[in-house]
């Protein structure tokens, strides 16, 4: 386990970036910089993080960054990674930093291609469950019931399970993480960095603006997502699937906190009725069943 005290205090995320208060994407970027330091180059498609960088000619992020059109992050990253391979830059880490829209919707074709080719990149999906940059529109990763500016009465469909899609691609490393649990995320990033090929990390990132909660509560909401079991931390590595220790307790339904504690903090769920909550609870149960079954068939003994 990573010890927070041993992490570098230097961060490549600087004051003066253009994020909203309580932004989960800046939290995530800080952890990426702690985990990978100046070995990393970021590829960022359209999304909040295009703006967070701040105004040219300055930048609030200390990484080298190749900004790219919305749909093409995984492809531009593939090109960069090949260039570094040719030039013998062995320890350079090409890191895609893309939103849920840039990953699961418009960018999924390029990501699928890069995964099939097993390009040597770390692809991080920073999942705030909507198109925040354009003003909180639904994405295929918005959860059931959530209000967005294109689902005024609540989304009717469930969240697309992108990490599972990546496992289906046979990627050498797939993991889920949360901005509420930095050490787990950093550990996963470091493990990813040690593996050749396509590493996919799906980072749950509660957004105060889009989810309608107080900016001081980002970490609390992120933790509740794990504690209620609606977000599950796991790792798939070399064909082995394992629930991460931080999520392990919530395999047992009775250990989970009531979902309502998570929902009531967020304005986007304010309108939910009892039936909607039941739909979400059933969804949680069904996902857990699937992950535990996967662990049974694809996992060595759980830790």
């Amino acid at each position, binding site marked *: 386990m990573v010890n927070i005290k041993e992490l570098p205090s230097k961060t490549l995320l600087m004051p003066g970036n253009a994020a909203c208060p309580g932004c989960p994407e800046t939290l995530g970027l800080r952890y990426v910089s702690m985990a990978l330091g*100046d*070995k*990393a*180059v970021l*590829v960022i498609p359209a999304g909040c993080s*295009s*703006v967070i*960088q*701040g*105004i*040219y*000619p300055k*930048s609030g*992020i*200390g990484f*080298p*960054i*190749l*900004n*790219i*059109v919305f*749909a*093409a992050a*995984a*492809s*531009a*990253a*593939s*090109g*960069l*990674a*090949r*260039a*570094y*391979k*040719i*030039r013998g*830059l062995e*320890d*350079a*880490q090409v890191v895609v930093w893309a939103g849920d829209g840039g990953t699961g919707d418009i960018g999924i*074709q*390029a990501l*699928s*291609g890069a995964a*099939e*080719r097993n390009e040597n990149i770390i692809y991080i999906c920073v999942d705030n469950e909507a198109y925040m940059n354009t003003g909180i529109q639904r994405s295929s990763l918005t959860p059931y019931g959530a209000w967005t500016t294109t689902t005024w009465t609540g989304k009717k469909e469930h969240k697309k399970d992108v990490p599972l899609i990546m496992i289906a691609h046979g990627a050498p490393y797939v993991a889920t993480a949360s901005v509420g649990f930095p050490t787990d995320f950093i550990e996963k990033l470091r493990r990813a960095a040690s593996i050749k090929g396509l590493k996919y990390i799906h980072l749950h990132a509660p957004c105060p603006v889009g989810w309608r909660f107080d900016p001081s509560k980002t970490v609390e909401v992120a933790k509740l997502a794990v504690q209620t079991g609606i977000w599950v931390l796991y790792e798939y590595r070399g064909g082995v699937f394992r629930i991460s220790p931080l999520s392990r307790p919530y395999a047992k339904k009775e250990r989970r906190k009531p979902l309502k504690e998570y929902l009531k903090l967020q304005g986007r769920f304010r309108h939910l009725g009892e039936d909607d909550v039941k739909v979400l609870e059933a969804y949680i149960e069904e996902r857990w069943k699937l992950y535990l079954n996967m662990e049974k068939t694809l996992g060595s003994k759980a830790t």
Partner: protein
Amino acid sequence: MTVKLLTGNYTVAEAARLARVKVVAAFPITPQTTIVEKIAEMIEHGEMDAEMIHVESEHSALAAAYGAAAGGVRAFTATSSQGLLYMHEVVWWVAGSRIPLVMAIVTRAIGPPWNIHVSHEDIMDQRDTGWIISIAEDNQEVLDLTLQAFRISEDPRVYLPAMVGLDGFILSHTTMPVDVPSQEEVDSWLPPRSPGPYVIEPGSGVIMGNIPPDEDYMRMRKAMQTAMRNAERVIMEVEEEYYKLTGRRYGGLLECYRCSDAKYAVVLMGTWAGNAKEAADRLREKGYPVGVARIRYIRPFPSMLLREKLGGMKGVMVMDRSVSMGRGGPLFLEVAEALRSKPSMMSVIAGVGGVDVGVDDISSLVEKFIGKVEERGHVYIDEYWYGV
């Protein structure tokens, strides 16, 4: 220098190999396909030292080539028609990033309805993107333009990506003898890719593309236009140096054939310029003083050269292989502006979607045009569809 029998597409592949391209990312589409096949074959057989990225689309093809070029290596791609439209967003992105890169465009019609034959709609659609755009008449010129494109694109006065057009099937799938320089000759003339204008790599601190103040955005756009103007000179210089190496030169942005004593000229681009030259020869036998001005670079556009060479003529007929819907022949409009419509002018739209246009067609069109001008003194025919 050895003479090889090559199709246009194999010529493109040969040029990419000779230029020591390090990353190729491409997606197949008729009639470009054999470029991708040939390059894949050369790489797999160890004849070309490069990485091939087998992308899942053209949007990704150009994005991957762009990533590689931003990472400091020489990159290349090729496409046609639907593929070029599919990557259009990235076409703009690459130019705005000022990243040197070369892309072959095998010209083809755009659907619907499906049509795989030659047409200039695809390449003409790229005029505003900030790419250098050239177009060849034969396979020899395909080789020469492609090799030169790397030098031009990587010149610090330019730093813009470059497209090289070749007509679908007429060049892409037709075998012709091509004088191919040796690797040593090319190496002596084309140095390895320099790290300019910047390289995105760990520790570089470079960020490409974050939001600027609007004035800076506009300044960057103006700088691209300045680079285009610089390219006019760089294209001439590069061609002169290439001439010393190979003994071949064409006249930079515009090739003029029998123009110096001509009173009438046909302006066009691509392969059918060969037919126009033949038509000019025949018309001259009949006593008509006709020349041909072949556009070699659509961008930067040879406005000055056109004015200089054609401005004093009696009549200029422009042949377009595409249409700007609701306006007319795009090449005609640009030539008319360059000449300030001083000579008599006629716009001919023909050959669209691969409709055949031969020597007789062109000479009869020119003869009729000359007849009208001689009869009326000055004419301005702004749209004439020929063949349908």
